[in-house]
């Protein structure tokens, strides 16, 4: 489980903003001196990282919304959150 608790409540840090960009043709994550392109699934994940929903709750919501296996969704969610945590863009 790569050391991430399913009870953790991920939250994008203040100063990190998910927004849509027409020029870039989709979602972008704006952070200090950095811009990341985010795909549609990533945006669905990050929109739920509000500091209130738990990791388990986010996974359950997405699995249900996309009719996808929980295991697979959990792997995707953890991979993205781990990357953003390493870049100091997200608190867990």
């Amino acid at each position, binding site marked *: 489980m790569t050391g991430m608790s399913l009870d953790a409540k991920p939250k994008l840090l203040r100063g990190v903003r998910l927004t849509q960009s027409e*020029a*870039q043709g989709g979602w972008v994550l704006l952070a200090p001196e950095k811009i990341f392109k985010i795909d549609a699934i990533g945006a669905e994940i990050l929109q739920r990282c509000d500091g209130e929903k738990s990791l388990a709750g986010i996974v359950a919501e997405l699995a249900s919304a996309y009719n996808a296996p929980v295991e697979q969704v959990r792997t995707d969610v953890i991979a993205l959150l781990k990357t953003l945590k390493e870049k100091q863009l997200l608190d867990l």
Partner: protein
Amino acid sequence: MTVIGHPAILSGPIGILAELTHRCPLACPYCSNPLALEGRETELDTQTWARVFREAGALGVLQAHLSGGEPAARRDLAEITKAANEAGIYTNLITSGIGINRDRLKSLADAGLDHVQISIQDSEAASADRIAGYQGAFRRKQELAAEVVGSGLMLTVNMVVHRANIERAPAMVELAVSLGARRVEIAHVQYYGWALKNRAALMPAREQVERAVPLVEEIARRHKDRIVIDAVFPDYFARYPKACVGGWGRRSLNVTPSGKVLPCHAAETIPDLEFWSVRERSLEEIWNKSPAFQAFRGTDWMQEPCRSCARRDRDFGGCRCQAFALAGDARAADPVCHLSPHHDVVDRITASAGEAEYVYRG
């Protein structure tokens, strides 16, 4: 601006460096401002900056770096910030830390400011104040850093590294961690503007750079759960040039206090370039058609060894201003590249680095 991840998939202009004023209480000898500073009477007014940000937003620009000089020298900084925010642009305040108290910080946060970057000149007070040319700067910067973190805004500390302080790069990272910054830039002086004038005093010895790099890497690993470190070491010691501003006229633009639009902050050092102003034209027209932006866009302007180089779409031949400054030809390969026929100039400069007095900006 650094775009981490997949820079190739981003397109068009994404960042604007808004030099709101050249006025600054500090006098750092490596200041990136031009030697001929633009005076207060030439500065754009609030409404014009608001229009510039609206046009930038429409052009697809995602981030504004509110810089200077010291941007807080402008009384309308909060209004300008609000205008950028309303244009949908992420706002990054680049400040010396002088001129912003708790109330002013709150007004900036209320205006939608996303991020604060404070420059700190050294990890030791006396040296930091000497470099900044301002008594008490070190203490005031730390006070503002505490206010920023206390207010919940994200803080980056920018540590400018050069000959006099490169040995303390690890201590500077420790200081940034203790201030509660989530990000620290260990940014080696870039030799433009006042830094080019002071190059002999600022250039580190090769051994200093070689000692500092692994120490910074080690401390980055040690603190990876608390802070992210972006370290830029001097390109004069590199084998290949940097992809300066992500390519000329490709990802970013710079607006001077008086409204001139430049492909990079040093572009005016290249002779015979024609710059257009936001006073007369829209940002879109300037971005697409101004002679200065067209001059080195793409790869058609390149000479050998860039023209046939496999890296030409990655580093774009390096920096045009540096090519002019060191090789006397803005179309030449950046002489820091080991493939440049002028590379010996760089070796001579780095080998002759030594003690010299700073010339402070006025």
